[in-house]
């Protein structure tokens, strides 16, 4: 269990919470924390482990959300099937954008991914015949596991917890497997990695595609939970930034970072939303001002994020204790 202590605490607490707390507001916050943590973890696969920092990941999130919603409304298909289709489409999209933008570094890659998500936003909001256009798609609520409709939030907690664990497992795999080490090599020094015979271009494309598929899966679940797909939200640059923000504040390239970031950010958001909802709508924006500033401070002073920073401190303490 070495190295999983933090995960055990966080996911254990999430699993136990519904047994003690039945308050709808808290359970809703918990679901959102796990959900945003999972998507950010999916972003981390490309942005953190492969160093392909995307600011257009909402494209894949939207693909997942739309696939399930459209298939359910049009053909009465199960959201699980929609999730599968979404993941396949997102993988394809990830392969294409990953391949096309493969040579691009830093800001160029970020710009290319932003443009990609904007294209999907325009298509989704204008192609009225297929996507219902800018009005968005309401997701039909049909109770049952096969149709992904649960009246109780407790079922949602465990479902999303499962998703979070799956994303966590993928990240841990990328930390400890051969592929993970190869990716780290490509991220740190691509020329050196290539000289050692690592197929760097192929690895980066595969990482982006895998990240896209996971992100799309999260998008499907999110749409089923919220019950509505709005193109201007699911394909927005803000959403892409949110995935990156959680991960960076928590710790980029660490398996628990995205979840720690999400705990901080999502809970402050829900708290402020609840506090200011009846005062003035705009005040909710306060949390984003805080995050904007937090992001600037974190990348400057603790670029490895909270998990990375505390991890270092603990390891340092451990060495002292042994010495």
């Amino acid at each position, binding site marked *: 269990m070495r190295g999983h202590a933090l995960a055990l605490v966080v996911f254990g607490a999430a699993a136990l919470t519904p047994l003690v707390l039945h308050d709808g507001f808290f359970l809703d916050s918990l679901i959102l924390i796990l959900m945003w943590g999972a998507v950010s973890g999916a972003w981390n696969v490309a942005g953190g482990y492969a160093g392909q*920092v995307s*600011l257009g990941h909402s494209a894949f999130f939207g693909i997942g959300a739309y696939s399930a919603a459209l298939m359910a409304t049009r053909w009465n298909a199960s959201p699980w099937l929609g999730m599968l289709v979404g993941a396949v489409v997102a993988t394809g999209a990830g392969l294409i954008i990953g391949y*096309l*933008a493969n*040579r*691009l*570094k*830093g*800001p*160029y890659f*970020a*710009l*290319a991914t*932003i*443009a*990609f998500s*904007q*294209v999907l936003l*325009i*298509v989704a909001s*204008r192609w009225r015949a297929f996507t219902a256009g800018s009005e968005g798609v309401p997701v039909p609520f049909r109770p049952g596991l096969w149709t992904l409709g649960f009246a109780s939030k407790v079922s949602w907690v465990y479902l999303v917890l499962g998703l979070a664990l799956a994303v966590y497992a993928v990240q841990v795999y990328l930390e400890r497997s051969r592929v993970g080490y190869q990716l780290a090599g490509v991220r740190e020094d691509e020329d050196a990695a290539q000289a050692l015979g690592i197929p760097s271009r192929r690895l980066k494309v595969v990482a982006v595609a895998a990240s896209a598929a996971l992100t799309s899966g999260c998008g499907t679940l999110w749409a089923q939970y919220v019950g509505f797909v709005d193109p201007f939200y699911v394909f927005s*640059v*803000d959403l892409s*930034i949110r995935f*990156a*923000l959680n991960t*960076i504040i928590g710790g*980029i390239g660490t398996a628990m970072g995205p979840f720690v970031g999400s705990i901080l950010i999502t809970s402050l958001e829900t708290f402020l939303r609840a506090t200011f909802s009846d005062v*003035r*709508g*705009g*005040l909710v*924006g*306060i949390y*984003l*001002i805080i*995050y*904007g*500033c*937090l*992001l*600037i401070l974190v*990348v*400057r002073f603790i*670029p490895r994020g909270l998990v990375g920073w505390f991890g270092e401190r603990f390891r340092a303490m451990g060495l002292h204790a042994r010495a």
Partner: protein
Amino acid sequence: MSAVPQLLVSTVLLGGIYALIAVGLTLIFGIMRVVNFAHGEFLMLGMYLAFWAFTLWHIDPYFILVVAVPLFFAVGLGVYALVMRGVIHASHNVQIFTTVGLSTALQNLALVFWTGDFRFVRPWHSGVVLRIGGGAFNLSQVVAFAVAVLFTLSLFAFMKWTHAGRVMRATAQDGEAATLVGINTDRVYRLAFAIGIACVGVAGVLISPLYSVYPTAGLQFVLLAYVVVVLGGLGDMVGALLGSLIVAAVEVIGSYLFGSAWKEVIYFVLFIAVLVLRPAGLFGQRGAEALGV
């Protein structure tokens, strides 16, 4: 064919304004090697400055320019000292997320203070119609174009003929060599950032009578400016001018042929195509993108 002169005039008018937005972005990139993801937010702040001056004191946006230039220059100096200075030698990721954080903070500052309502600036000149080349344009658009061109040309003249301009170009070419010959690069970066912000702030004031003002108003323009700047080659100022005309032409002709709904798809696809095929821009040096510069 009767539409051709009208499309041409529209393209030039639009291109002139895009140029002023893009030239600041490309100046900052060319000299600091930082892509300013918060560029659009300064445009938005310029629009709000014009809006409040017009609404509260009935001052015409064009008189506000006199205040906007020094004000945004000062804002640029301040933001540089507080935020940008510390990350100028940091990695790409740190730089990207510093400006992304700045963008998020500024956008929501506007949202909290001024709400998300769409606001309008309608001075008398936005109602005056001029006929040029068979098309109708309002006076605000024509003046915005003229002033934008004036500012852009002054910036070119400044870069070409003044000592400060030469120093900036030298730093852009080789920062280390510039330091060796005694150039204080920190001051150069500060000046470049302040000028870039002043340009985009002025552009915001200029376009305020033409578009609605809201907290995320900067986004659509800055996305456009990225397209312009990448087309022209990041850091290439003349390229930015040509890029502005290309994007304006795509926008004008695209909305003429396919309707305004789909024009954005055209330039984003163009954008991705340029990034993929010639990431250094249509006129830039090959390989710049692989160096990450």
